């Protein structure tokens, strides 16, 4: 892997089915939350599962500091807590 550097070059015909996620028309959807994911970063193994599984893309896992959640937009679905293999995320009532 990583034998050569990847080259990203725009296609000649470039209308592609890709999109950059933006803030939705509903605004700060964090207000919808009933339960809040609370992270214990000392347990986190940086496996990135929560980041991958978050359906609204509000989780970042930083190798140094651990899980960061944007609570302005987290709706509190609890998927991150479900997929966390070391129970580093716990859902707590707002």
């Amino acid at each position, binding site marked *: 892997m990583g034998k050569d550097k990847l080259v990203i070059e725009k296609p000649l015909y470039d209308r*592609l*089915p890709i999109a950059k996620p933006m803030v939705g028309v509903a605004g700060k959807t964090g207000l919808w939350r009933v339960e809040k994911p609370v992270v214990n970063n000392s347990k986190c193994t940086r496996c990135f599962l929560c980041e991958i599984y978050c359906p609204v893309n509000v989780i970042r896992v930083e190798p140094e500091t651990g899980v960061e959640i944007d609570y302005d937009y987290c709706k509190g679905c609890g998927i991150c807590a479900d997929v966390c293999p070391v129970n580093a995320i716990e859902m707590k009532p707002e």
Partner: protein
Amino acid sequence: MGEKLVLTGNYAVAYAAKLARVDIVAAYPITPQTTIVEKIAELIESGEMDAIMINVESEHSALAATFGAAVAGARVLTATSSHGLMYMHEYLHWTSRARIPVVLALVTRTLAPGWNIWSSHDDFYGQRDTGWILSFALDNQEVLDTTIQAFKISEDPRVYLPVLVALDAFILSHTSMPVELPDEKQVAEWLGPRRQGYVVDGRELLAIGNLTWPEDTEEMVMDLWRAMEESYNVIKEVDREYGKLFGRSYGGLIQCINCSDAKYLAVAMGAWSGDLMEAVNMLREEGYSIGVLRVRFYRPFPHRDIWEYARGVKGLIVYDRAISFGAWGQLYTDTVAGLYQYTTKLPIISNVIAGVGGVNVTAEEFYELTKNFIEKIEGGEEPPRITWYHRR
């Protein structure tokens, strides 16, 4: 001169993957898988090939994993056959419409029921409208060369479409012939680094396949069509470059033998074109003015090249190893429609369906069929438009 090895068609694909320095191979390891991935696993295990093999639970997952790895920036290959390809079908569309370079080797095999492991082109034609570039090899050397070329074509910014390389089951897949391997460093230099239009690797938020309005969707599909049209030139260019560097090129999208002065053309695709070439040689010796037009790339369809040779001929006989039920052979349909782009006065074009289910068609049989076709026209008769040739 590169190293020469005695290789089956399957092993030729594996060595091409090694030479193209593929990063990831995701494949279903059980039947209808072939020895392609078995050999790749061996090459990885022995340290000859630096790649990761992902064994998955189905062909649908095989192409999904291949697609995922490709989206993330890896040079990828997967391989399958017959029903495995049917199961992959959904992801063929995902890959082409997302405009992600991928190479897939297909060992063409008859579909069930009637459990049959011999070659028909049914599985191949099932992918006709997926937006993949579709190629078909004549022999094991071409399997290796086309697979390497496929990466170059697929990763060209003018194209960015997945490429399927087909080889006939058993006739090529399990039969050996000496195959010359180009120099690995030279191939790496020519292919260059992995190139694609965008990457999803976590550094930038990017989503594939969001809800898209009809107008936007149509424009994306139009761009896919344009990229496919553009690939016509890229395929020719790549084949020419390959020829200059490695000493073998195949005429681009078609190979036409004995065609320049021919009054008749016999059209075919795949390994049995070799038998047809033998038949045409026999006919030439007897003074018949005939050439063989072998389709090497079926999508994009090489209608320009066919017209170039078919202009002014008296008749074309198209051999199909599959049939579109209720219509005609697929190669025939495209040949007729393709020529109609250039003229409203078509020559006589007949279709022979044969070799379905892996029935062997010999050079002698091609000789008889092709000779009868010419004799009929020369005698002022019109040969039937479609016949099913079955000798039992």
